[in-house]
């Protein structure tokens, strides 16, 4: 496939074009774990979303706890 890279050796190019791809020597796990300025680089990354999930669960448990306490308090006051 026709692909121009003037960094190749001059001369016939047709067999050299396959070498023009950009590649990074990176372990995929390395990409996933990276953070920039405490912000995830990648979308949908597990670590941050897990933290958010736990935070939500704790908040919901607390709210349910408060509601139950209020209801119980109200019930015992009536008795």
């Amino acid at each position, binding site marked *: *496939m*026709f*692909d*121009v*890279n*003037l*960094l*190749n050796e*001059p*001369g*016939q*190019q*047709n067999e050299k074009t396959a070498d*023009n*791809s*950009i*590649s*990074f020597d*990176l372990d*995929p796990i390395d*990409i*996933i774990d*990276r*953070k*920039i*300025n405490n*912000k995830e*680089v*990648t*979308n*949908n*990354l597990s670590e941050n979303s897990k933290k958010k999930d736990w935070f939500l669960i704790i908040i919901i448990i607390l709210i349910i706890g408060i509601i139950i306490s209020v209801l119980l308090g109200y019930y015992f006051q009536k008795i």
Partner: protein
Amino acid sequence: MSALPALIGISIHENKYYYLSWIPSESGPLVIDYGTTIIKEQDIPFDYFIDKIKEYNINPRFTIALSNQHIKYNFLESYNPLIDDWNNRNNYDKIFQSSYDSYIYNTEDGNFNIHILKSIKNNIVNQIKHKKYPLANLSIGIFSALTGVKSWYNLENFGNYIILKLSKRNILELLIIRDRQFSSYVVGQKNNDNFNITSFFGNKKYKEDISETIKSFFNNSLDLKDYEKIFYYSIGGNKNDANLFSSFNSDKFILINPFKRLNLDDNCNPKLSEINLSSYAELGNAFGGIDV
């Protein structure tokens, strides 16, 4: 934390650098910076592009797309090795060979040759070597856009297509791909409803067809022949022409917008019009071989 690998693409057009920086991420290339800056001195300001993203702690690598200013092209029809050799000796004398690096691309009908001034190429390579940054690719305007189109769009089902560049003074550049191979590189000028080819490098049997096809864009007789897609972009081109292409309401005309296909970091949302975003098409060699 180790530095992030980053790719900084620079394309040079007239008095401007267009640049775009990206880092690899789980969902593909993530753009962290892009923009334009005026060329103020002969040396490319590599550190300027790095400084703009220094908060990311990056390990940069560059790609550069040059303008046609220091490039020469020719197309030599191929007959047999003896005649080809004789042709080559007649076309290139010793002074030319010592001044230019020549890149030869075999096609069905002959050789398409790109020649770059050695002094220009060496100057760029030495500048970047001096800074100790790696240079991953050195390409040229519309040829870099082709690399980008191959990365940004799914071309699996298309064999015949055109990359079309609209420039100042109604100059059009075209890269014709037939059967997924280079067919010809054409430069011409639009004059009202007419289109005159000023330079043609490729198989001459298609020259008239291409001229007719381009003329048909401007005189309301749209005739794409067997071309399946026209990928177009504009760098300072006539806005009316770009609007004309979009007014065809044809899915065969595609305005190249690299940003549509890329993920952008939160602080990096493009606020330009689609046609102005297409000016970044020549940064395509920064995505060579990467499926976006």
